[in-house]
């Protein structure tokens, strides 16, 4: 039988046999020929397993804040409604034509409001789906749950359906759906297939935004313009990244994303400042030594890049495991190369 050729026969070796040598894993050297070497392996069960669990549980009390804001919002809406009804009544009292015009405008406004609200709600739901997917994928990477990983991949495929550039990647991934693949490996496979092109595009977006910020702040006349421009550019970057990874944030969604991104920067920022940022500024920051304005530009660009990386972490539906997480150093290199080329 040809398929049996690779099958190796069972074998048993007594450890106290003179022909058997027990070696440590780091021990080298070639024992004499004909002996059997036994190397004990590190016990995988004793290796530490990373568990990402918040030490302090999230507050899950009754959302009084939300109740307050909803109630106030409702009251304001009621007041507005009342005002508009009165206005239309007054218009009708003056002339019928004006009355109908007012009524039509009010309906148009109501319709538009309804659609805007629906869109916002849809965007928020979509963001929540992505966040949940991220958390579920992280859990599967630890638990290696096969059925759950299949569910995640199905949801990912649904999410990726709106991006026509991923058609081939989706087909490949669907082809693997029936194979026997472990839960964690399935997630890694999905990441490699679906996220690779998106990650490249995200990196390009972040690095171009950072470049734009660094140029504008280097030439802008006032600090206020700098601040405004950085703010607008960051908002735009976050929205682009969210759209790239499948979210469709509206205004509320942007506020929520912004909060998450800033929280993420706050958590990871200290670390970044200690290693990459300082190193970048001091090491590669030759430009900074030449001119103060130029230095400020580079620094602002790096900050934007930092924000962009945090936004990638927040908007990406899968955690980084199989693919490398883009780091500031790569982007900073792009940035400095560009600056130096422009000099």
């Amino acid at each position, binding site marked *: 039988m040809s398929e049996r050729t690779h099958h190796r026969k*069972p*074998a048993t*070796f*007594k450890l106290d046999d003179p022909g*058997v040598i027990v070696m440590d894993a780091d021990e080298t050297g070639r024992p004499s020929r004909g002996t059997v070497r036994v190397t004990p392996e590190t016990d*995988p069960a004793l290796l530490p397993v990373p568990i990402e669990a918040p030490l302090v549980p999230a507050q*899950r009390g009754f959302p009084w804040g939300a109740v307050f804001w909803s109630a106030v919002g409702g009251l304001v809406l009621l007041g507005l409604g009342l005002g508009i009804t009165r206005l239309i009544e007054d218009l009708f009292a003056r002339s019928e034509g004006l009355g109908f015009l007012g009524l039509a405008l009010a309906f148009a406004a109501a319709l538009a409001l309804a659609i805007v609200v629906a869109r916002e709600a849809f965007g928020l739901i979509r963001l929540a789906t992505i966040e949940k997917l991220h958390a579920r994928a992280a859990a599967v990477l630890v638990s290696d749950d*096969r059925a759950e990983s299949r569910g995640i991949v199905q949801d990912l495929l649904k999410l990726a359906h709106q991006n026509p550039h991923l058609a081939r990647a989706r087909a490949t991934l669907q082809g693997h759906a029936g194979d*026997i693949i472990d839960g964690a490996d399935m997630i890694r496979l999905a990441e490699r297939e679906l996220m690779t092109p998106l990650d490249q595009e995200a990196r390009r977006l972040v690095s171009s935004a950072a470049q734009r910020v660094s140029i504008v702040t280097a030439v802008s006349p006032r600090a206020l313009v700098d601040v405004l421009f950085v703010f607008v550019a960051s908002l735009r970057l976050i929205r682009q990244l969210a759209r790239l990874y499948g979210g469709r944030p509206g205004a509320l969604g942007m506020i929520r994303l912004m909060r998450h991104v800033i929280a993420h920067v706050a958590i990871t920022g200290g670390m970044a400042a200690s290693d990459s940022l300082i190193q970048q500024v001091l090491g590669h920051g030759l430009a900074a030594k030449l001119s103060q304005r130029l230095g400020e530009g580079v620094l602002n660009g790096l900050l934007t890049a930092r924000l962009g990386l945090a936004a990638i972490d927040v908007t990406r539906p899968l955690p980084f495991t199989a693919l490398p997480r883009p780091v500031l150093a790569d982007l900073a290199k792009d940035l400095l190369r560009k600056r130096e080329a422009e000099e």
Partner: protein
Amino acid sequence: MAPRFSEMIEEARLSARALKDYGDHFFNPTVRLGVTGLSRAGKTVFITALIHGLTRGGRFPVFEPFATGRIARARLAPQPDDAVPRFDYENHVRTLIEERRWPNSTVDISELRLVIDYQRQNGADRTLTLDIVDYPGEWLLDLPLLNKSYEQWSRESLALSRERPRAPLAAQWHAHLGTLSAEGHEDEQAALTAARLFTDYLRACRDERFAMSLLPPGRFLMPGNLAGSPALTFAPLDLPGEGVAPEGSLWAMMVRRYEAYKDVVVRPFFRDHFSRLDRQVVLVDALSAFNAGPEALHDLEAALAGILDCFRIGRSTFLSSLFRPRIDRILFAATKADHLHHSSHDRLEAVLRRTVAGAVTRAEDTGALIDVVALAAVRATREATVARGRDRLPSLLGTPAPGEIAGGEAFDGTTEVATFPGDLPADPEQLFAGEGAFRGLSSASAEKTDFRFLRFRPPQLESVNAEAPTLPHIRLDRALQFLIGDRLQ
């Protein structure tokens, strides 16, 4: 009309029982976890390790409530059912840790209550009662008998016993069967001899060399206090295709006793224990089937399919938990995963998944969850690489149990060995390719087999005198997370 009426009474009793349980559980949340498996699958060790880990604090990184520290403590509570023996946890732990022997096998049902104090994720203090019910998997194989007449069962058992490799084992019984006439006068001595020979044949099938699984009726091998009673003194007969049993014939006597077996043994078990379970673990010892050969693997598959047919599975709803409790999670666990290098665990899981594939599809339709895992409740080996010539064999280090034989040598229970058990194929279908798919002990001599899984002694724990020596395990935490993790949210 009579059988229909008795069925209705049976259903009514089940519902009454369920209603009472529901009342009890309302104030005191309880999970009844059934642990079963064919004999030597490792039920006792599984429960012992589970309780030991929960009460003494084992390493359970994947069992979320435990790993994140939300479980304050788990303690043993007095056993609730007065008519069921208590699971002898303390003795089993002693055997396992101090004597380094595997505990004796399950011959009867037993139960133990574990109370878990935990904090919910929102901060509320709660208590979950976990009733662990241990029963032999052979009893499960009896449950399909409830829907079979004697004639049907007799025909099936006889057909099965004429297949390879059972036929040679059943030769003696078949010879005696030839002397009996189904329509002849009833004869106690003939019935006794037939039952004895039939039991001998079942016992021979269970031997390590053949490792057959599908051997109903289960009580023949584990008679307990019913040994010798008429309910256990029957055997299949060579019956004519049609007709009913004549009055006073041997056939009629067998039919009566078969029905008695169902009434005395099978129905009470179903009503009092089986129908009340919420969660179920089925432990499967696939490795001994690999040792024995393809026939044993086929038999295991048939036995598992039989077991699965008995479960009332489906998502629990409010009404179902009131009147007709269902099992909403079943875990199939290939035990003794420590007898394989971890790189082969996925392949072992794939084999088991292939075996229970039918059940998984069916369960998905009903909304119940089914999972398959390769685990070792107590890990008896360490892993090692053996370099022999240019070969690198992923092997295991451990102390084989006394009396185990490999390479023509018997072990005394103190020598440590490194063993390579053979490569499992990447595609499980290869193993199910029928007769001759691989060579086992049932068809080849010990040196020529494709797989050899030695039985190892329990591990030497490093700190026996320290306060809490934890038992090493493989994926017991994942099993726990699947079985009760959701009830500890």
